[in-house]
Structure formats: structure tokens, C-alpha cells
């Protein structure tokens, strides 16, 4: 299948890219990895009049820790994370998710920031960012702003990015040695959208209680959701099987999935529960806590 025609721009600076996005407004789309956009264009489901290809922008492929945050530049590919030994050993949640996004070849081209901006309700990075309490850095003609992921994710395929803006970075808090996480996903096969998936990250206090926790679920609503009530149940508590079960049930409560070939509403809701439960058990297990 062949995409419709479009005008192609290849800016050489973020400023230029932002200016182009301002100039063309809704007609324009940013082309980063293109792994969601190009298939949509081949189906002519997406027919943007203008593409702004940011792949030649300098200094956007950085992946570094600074001021307690892991900074992921807009041109960091999924495989940059997947093959990064330090991230793989210390960022348990991110390590998990980096191995199940799309398929191994798509991950060479797809970007973390692009996935967050695309904000597919079944995307893997959004739930991950929710659990990890990530932030997004957005550049516009008026300057730069930083937004908490919960504010960034607005609706299905919709973020808080406005016309004339682009996201330049995602930031994930650096985990300490008492922090762990896990990403649990079921998909019908490699490369399918998730039937349901859960992202979990938690930090244990010295006394073994849960100091901080984030739980995100994806593919079970029109956007990735934070399981806030589940977090509340566990925060400050010593984890037990019963508490985990109760927290997991909160995921099923807020899940409002559309039925499709991947499963009925009931199945997906129950999977949100099962996967949150499994993610919590796995994350705790990685900290030596057996449930």
C-alpha cells in the first residue's frame, strides 16, 4: 500500500522543527521513528499534508542520567534502551518493557518519546511512564515546559502537546537500590497490540514497607490509566498477598476496555487484575521479597 503524497521537511534544529509545526499546525506531523505513523499512512488512515522529519536533528539521541533523572532524548530508539546494559540492570520496569514493545526490528527504529506522543491507548510506554512517574519535556516557540506524565496523557491518541510544539525528551526518575518494577504484558503474538498490560514500580523503605509505588495499565481503556486506588492501598504498607490481590482488583475496577478480537470486556478487565498482581509479585521478588 502506498501513502498519499505529502510535503517533506527535514529541519536541522529543534527551533526550525517547532517553527514548521507552528506554521502548518494540524496539517503537519512529526516523523521520528515512524513505526506507527508510516503504516497508518500506508493504509491512508493518516494523510498528513506535511511531514517534519526530525531524524537529522542533532543532539536528540542522548540517554543519560542527570539530577536524579534518566533523560531520554526524542531520537532515542527502543533498542538504545533494550541494549543498554546499565539501564537493563538497574531500571527493572524499563528493562522489561524495552523487550516487549512491538517487535525486535520495529524497536530499532521506533522511539520512546515518539511512542509517548503517539499515545496509542494500547501503547507500552505510556503505562510505563505512569508507573515510573515520568515527565515530558515539550518545546514550543515560546520556550520549554516540563509536564508530569499524568497531565501529558489527555485522551486516546491525544496529548497535551499543542500546535507548534514538539516533545524533545522523556524523563524517568533514577531508581535507587530498593526500587524495582516489572512490566507484564499479554499479547496474541509478537508485534500485536497488548491484550492488556501492567506496569509496576515500587520502592521499599528500610522497614520493608512500600515507600512509593506507581501502577499503570494499558490497553484496557481509551488511554493508559494510573491505578491510583491500588497505589493507595499499598503505599506505606508491608506487602502481603491479600493486599496485592486487593490492589490488583482496583485495576479491574477502573479498566473500561472495548471488546475486540483480543478479548471481551470481562477478559481484559480480569487481565488487568492478573497482570497488576503478577507485576507486583515480580517487582517485590526482584527486591528479595517473596510473596
Amino acid at each position, binding site marked *: *500500500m*502506498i501513502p*498519499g*503524497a505529502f510535503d517533506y521537511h527535514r529541519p536541522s534544529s529543534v527551533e526550525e522543527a517547532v517553527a514548521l509545526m507552528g506554521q502548518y499546525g494540524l496539517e503537519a506531523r512529526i516523523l521520528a521513528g515512524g513505526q506507527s505513523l508510516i503504516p497508518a499512512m500506508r*493504509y*491512508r488512515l493518516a494523510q498528513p499534508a506535511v511531514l517534519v522529519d526530525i531524524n537529522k536533528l542533532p543532539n536528540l539521541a542522548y540517554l543519560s542520567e542527570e539530577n536524579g533523572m534518566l533523560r531520554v532524548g526524542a531520537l532515542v530508539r527502543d533498542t538504545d534502551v533494550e541494549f543498554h546494559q546499565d539501564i537493563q540492570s538497574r531500571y527493572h520496569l524499563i528493562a522489561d518493557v524495552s523487550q516487549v514493545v512491538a*517487535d525486535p526490528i520495529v524497536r530499532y527504529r521506533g522511539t520512546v518519546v515518539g511512542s509517548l506522543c503517539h499515545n496509542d491507548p494500547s501503547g507500552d510506554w505510556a503505562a510505563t511512564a505512569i508507573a515510573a512517574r515520568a515527565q515530558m519535556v515539550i518545546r514550543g516557540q515560546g520556550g520549554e515546559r516540563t509536564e508530569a506524565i499524568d497531565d501529558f496523557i489527555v485522551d486516546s491518541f491525544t496529548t497535551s502537546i499543542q500546535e507548534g510544539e514538539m516533545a524533545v525528551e522523556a524523563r524517568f526518575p533514577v531508581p535507587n537500590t530498593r526500587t524495582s518494577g516489572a512490566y507484564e504484558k*499479554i499479547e*496474541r*503474538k*509478537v*508485534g*500485536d*497490540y497488548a*491484550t492488556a498490560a501492567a506496569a509496576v514500580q515500587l520502592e521499599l523503605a528500610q522497614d520493608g514497607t512500600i515507600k512509593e509505588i506507581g501502577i499503570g495499565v494499558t490497553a484496557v481503556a481509551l488511554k493508559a490509566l494510573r491505578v491510583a486506588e491500588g497505589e493507595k492501598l499499598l503505599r506505606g504498607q508491608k506487602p502481603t498477598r491479600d493486599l496485592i*490481590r486487593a490492589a*490488583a482488583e482496583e485495576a479491574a475496577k477502573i479498566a473500561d476496555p472495548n471488546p475486540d*478480537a483480543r*478479548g*471481551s470486556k470481562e*477478559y481484559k478487565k*480480569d*487481565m488487568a*487484575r*492478573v*497482570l497488576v*498482581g*503478577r507485576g507486583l*509479585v515480580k517487582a517485590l521478588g526482584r527486591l528479595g521479597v517473596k510473596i
Partner: protein
Amino acid sequence: MAIESPNLEPKGIQGLGKAIKRKEDSRFIVGKGNYLDDINLPGMMHMALVHSPYAHAKINGIDSSEALKVPGVKAVITSKELAGAGLAWVPTLAGDKQMVLADGKVLYQWQEVAAVFADTRQAAADGAAAVQVDYEPLQAVVDPYKATDADAPVLREDIKDKMEGAHGPRRHNNHIWTWDVGSKDETDQALASSEIRVKQHMVYPRSHPAPLEPCGCIGDMSKATGRLTVYMTSQAPHAIRTVLSLVTGIPENNIRVISPDIGGGFGNKVPVYPGYVCAIVGSIVLGVPVKWVETRTENLTTTGFARDFHMDIEIGATKEGKVTAMKVYTLADHGAFDAAADPSKYPAGLFSICTGSYDFPKAYAEVDAVYTNKAPGGVAYRCSFRVTEASYLIERSMDVLAHELKMDPAELRIKNFIQPAQFPYPSALGWTYDSGDYEKTLKVALDKLGYEELRKEQAEKRAKGELMGIGISTFTEIVGAGPSKDFDILGLKMFDGAEIRVHPSGSAIVRAGTRHQGQGHETTWAQIVSEELGLDVDKIIVEEGDTDTAPYGLGTYASRSTPVAGGAMALGARRIREKAKKIAAHLLEVGEADVEWADKKFSVKGVPGKSVTMSQVAFAAYTNLPQGMEPGLETTYYYDPPNLTFPNGAYVCVVDVDKGTGEVKVRRFVAIDDCGTIINPMIVEGQVHGGLTEGFAMAFMQEIAFDAEGNNLSSNFTDYLLPTSLETPKWETGHTVTPSPHHPIGAKGVGESPTVGSPAAFVNAVVDALAHLGVRHLDMPVTREKVWKVLRGAGIDAF
């Protein structure tokens, strides 16, 4: 022509049973395969099709004006233009006819409505997007059981009042035919007096072969010569040439069909599709070559589907587990046109092999076919004409019976197998099985698996609340269609030809009417000839797929190449050997009676060391002949097999079930095949691996699904699920060898056995894992959710 890769080693004389590496690999591994889309002709235009988003709709108008404004677009044709050429409708292989482009209405989603011709593929696509069609949606018939309701909408206006179909009377506008076999009364009586009776409804869902290379065609009508050359992804180029001649009126000698390298077929590339016809018409009208290459969406929505059999079975047995009778009723959903690719006399294909490997005294099967608003097809997808459905039905049902009898499914099978002494075995539904030793094959499989130990493990696990299952399938196929007394397609007898030409210097070219799509004919045909003629396998080149050069043949599908063309190859070589023997006698200066063929050469009986090779004979055939003998050493042999062949096997599968998600993991899968004589064990094993993977896909993933409005929900590879390396289990294979007594080399064919035999093994394993929860059957694909429903229904939960 093969491009020799630099470092593939020479092989020498390599006949049957040798795992030599494939000759055809040399071009594929360096990217020099020659697939349809790789062919570009001077001045060639591109074609794109306009499709209907609706499954059932009236067409009130088609407006091409915007499309014709797109730069590069040269022409748009619709059914109206085709009608002018007498090509608005074309006959199907099954005695029906089908629209080429929508004529007044559309009958399935994504049906072809118009064809756009342009200078570039981009312009063609833009033009297709610009054609405006005014549709008036109509109620769609999706459920085959509702197709013949009194108030069901009429789908086929063209045959509305024609109640006599190609296979007898039609009882409803959406009814196509009824076909039955066996004795209904005797079967009913036997069932009535059976101590045990089990009934089961099961669906073999709609599936699609989905080879990775989509279909395509280049029409190239030369105004200068009046010759039409058609490049086509076709598994049966000769039959296509004949059909094209009959449909277009172009004399057959003026049509050349070239089927280049095929990137997988599996039955998908047997029928004639509207895109092919339009590309050919386009070339005739525009006077330049026209290429059409299908998109994956077109492939999955409009080309030949497979299966879609809705089956009810009843089996009778004694309390001891001896089967007494079987009765089958099947509803076949054929979509909008009956375009099934079956032999003419067999509208339900060879479905009547459904008594399987078991000695059923009485049996009866009845099949009804109906029209629905779905794509037509009914191709034999890696299957010999509905054998997959039959095998699944009986192998799944034997487990249902075992469950009812509380008997081990292996024991039940052994109790009912046709015994070796019974061959040739006449089945209750009219087939004569050639050979087999079913119990031996099953025992090899069970031993390799460690069946007894696994049953113990299962019992222990079950006591702990863990779920594992073991599934068995001991299937028998029926392939090699077929003997010309019974088998034809559009009247063309289903024999196959082989032409062998031995050159003076001892090399040879072999041509066949078959067309391989990955099965390795370039190697296995060479091996048969190497075996029969004693020529170096590297000196034998195999050519298929060009109707100007290859002998006539019905093509490659339904596992018929080795049983039919393989026979032609062996017998053709033997005919050459007869002549060669005369030349050898001449060279050895003895009488023909004193010459024997042994150890791949001609020797004088009783005189060690006095011999000539086939190469020497070949040279003599052109240089030094006995007086009066016709020069040359070549032949064309058409083989009409005396019977079908009956490959069989025993497959055993072990699964573990995740209580939280319902996920089923295949832990082990042992496949013991008996395909008779093995030509190349490496290729046979490769065929088994591939077939098992497709069987696995059907059991757990693949389905062409529709919603209530007839939308195809599986039109892409995100929704039509082909397993990747990660989902695919590891296969353990093995063989028993019971040669076919009537085949020249005893071979039975193997390409489809694993797809035919394995789905039941997978499903049986899952049902076995859940049997204690009261489950007797689950329909394919066995999704996580179906298992989850059983688990939660039984109060089983976990995270």
C-alpha cells in the same frame, strides 16, 4: 536458470533417501530469486483496484472522473467495460460463475469494483482512492446457518430463479448444493443399536493460506505477434492457460503462462482472481504490459479462503470401545461464489475420508453448501481438498468418545485402527486405502514422548491443581488426486507430465507440469532421475512453470506433486532406461538380454567390470547408435495414477495451561509421519516443520473473522495471526516407512500431513488439560479467553 553460488559443494549421484542440500537455494540466498514483482517489462503500467467497504450493497453509480484527473492515470475500467469484452463474469472451478468486477452489487467486503491503470504504482493507488462509488448498503448474511432462512436476503440475483445448480437442485436462493456419501439407513440403524453414542458440534474456522508473497500478475499482450504472455503467481500454470483460452477466446497456442518463483502458495495461488483478469484485459486494451501486485489487505480479504466447515458428528460404539458407525452433517460456508478448488465430482472435496484411520463398519456424511457475504474461495490450504476438516473432525471426535468411555485415547485408537492385514482397505465411504501400520506408528510416537511417564505427571499435577494435557492425533490423509477415472477439474483429467532430456555429455534437463513454491522440486525431481538413470544430481536441471516448455500437468497443490508428477518422473526415467539398455547392449557388444542395470550402470551379466555408465550411453545416443534406432535420449511421460495415496502419522502434544491468563504453552510435540518412501529426508523434515507450524497457527491463532455486518476483522497481519519464531513450539519429528504399493517409487507425499494431522492434537491436548472440569470440546482457535472462561467457570483463579 540457476545462478551457481560460489561455494556450494558438488553432490554426485544422489538418489532416494539422501538428505542432499537443495539446488534451488543458490539463487534465493543471494537475493536472485525471480518472483512476480521482480519482473519489469519495458513500458509496463501498474494497476490498482477499487474495493467495496461494504459486504453487501447495491451500486448506484461509479464516478471515475476524479481518478482520470490524477496525473499518470490512463484508464479506469468497471464491470461495464468488461461486459463489452464478455468478461464481466467468469466461470469458477466449481461450476459456478463469479463477477470479475462488481456488477450492480457487491457481495463481500473489499470486493473489486473498478481497476485503475497508471504509469506508476503511486498514480494507480491515488487513482483508485479517487474513484467515487455510490453504495446503498444491504443487509449482510454472515452466519451460514441463517443463509437459508425464509427471510434471508437474496445474495445472487443472477441465479435467483435457477434452482438447478452445478451439483443438483438448490432448495433456497442462498443454497448451492447438497452432497452425500454412504448409506444413511444402515448408518442410522447401526447407531440406533450402539451401546454408546456421542455427538459433537465443531467448527473448522475460516482460515487463509497467506503466503508471504502476495498474488500478482503481469498481462503482456503483444500487438505485433498476437501472443499473450501472462506472468502469474500460479500453482497450476497449464490449467490457467487452458482456462484463459476458453474464457478469452484466444487460441491456446497464443497464450503463454509463466509462473516464476513463488513465495509460498499453500493453495492460495490455485484459483483465478479478478486482479489477474483485469491486468490481462488492461494489457489487451492498452497495448502495454500491465502489472498488478496484490496488497496484503487484498490478499486476506478477497482471495481464496479455506475451511469454514461447520460440522456435526455422531459416533456409535460398544461399551468396550469398538466403533460401530459414524454420521456427519456439515454446513459449508462458501461465501459469495462457489469458487472452491475441488475436483469436479467432489464438491466437498475428499471430506469423505472422515472415517480416518479407523475401521468403521458403517458411515454416512452429508454436506450442504451455502452462499454468504464473504469472499469466495474454498481452496485446499495446505490440504488435499477438505481432508484437513475431515481429519480434525474424526481425531477430535475420537477423544470425545474416549472421554465418554473413560478410556485412554491411545487405547481407544489402537482398538479401532485398520489393521495392516486389512490393506488394501475399502472404507465405508468408498475409498481404498493403500497401506499403513497405524499402531506401529503410534507406538513409535508414544515411546519417543514417554507417554506413560507424562500421564503419571499429569495425575500428580492435577492433584496439586496444576493443569497439563496430552493430545493425540493418528490421522490418515488421502492425497495424489488423482486417477483420471474419477478426478478432473473443469474436465481436465488430473494426471501430470514429466519430460526428461538427456544431453550427449550426460547431463539432463527435466521439466514438469507441476510448480513448486518452496517444496524443493528442483532437488527431489533431480534425485528421482538421478536414482533411476544414475546421473550426477548436479547435472540434472529441473524446470517448471513455463507452459511453452513444460509438459502439461495440473500443478502443485493437495500434496499431489510427488504422488502424481513424482510417478511420471520415475516412469519417464525408466522408459529412457529401456532405450538406454539397448544402446548399452550395442556398446557392450552383447545381446540386450545379457545386460543388467545394477549399481547405477549397465553391466554384462556375469562379467564383472564390463559395464557402461549412463553418461557413456547418452553420448552414444547422439554419436553411435544401433542401426535403425531413433537418435536422442529423451521422453515425455504422462502418469495417471491407479489410486490415491494414504499418508498417515501419529502426533502427540503436551501442553501446560496458565491458570491466570488461560495461556496454553506447548511443551512438547512429537510427530511421527509415514509418507512411504522418502526421497529427501531433509526436505521432508522441513515440510513437516512448516506444516506443524501452520497447524499450530490454526489451533491457536489464525482465523478470518467477521462481525455481524460482514466486516472482515482479519485483514492484516496484526489481526490475522501468523506465529513468529517466539510462539512456535520446537518440533520433534520421526518416521515409519510403509511404501505405497502402487506408486512407482512407493512415495505418498508429505507436504500437508502435518497441517492436516496436527490441529486435533493441539486441541485434544488443551481439552485433555481441562477435561476434569467438564470440558469436552473447544473450537479453534483456542484463545486464552476461551480457556480462561473454562477456568473461571470452574472457580479456578490465580495471578
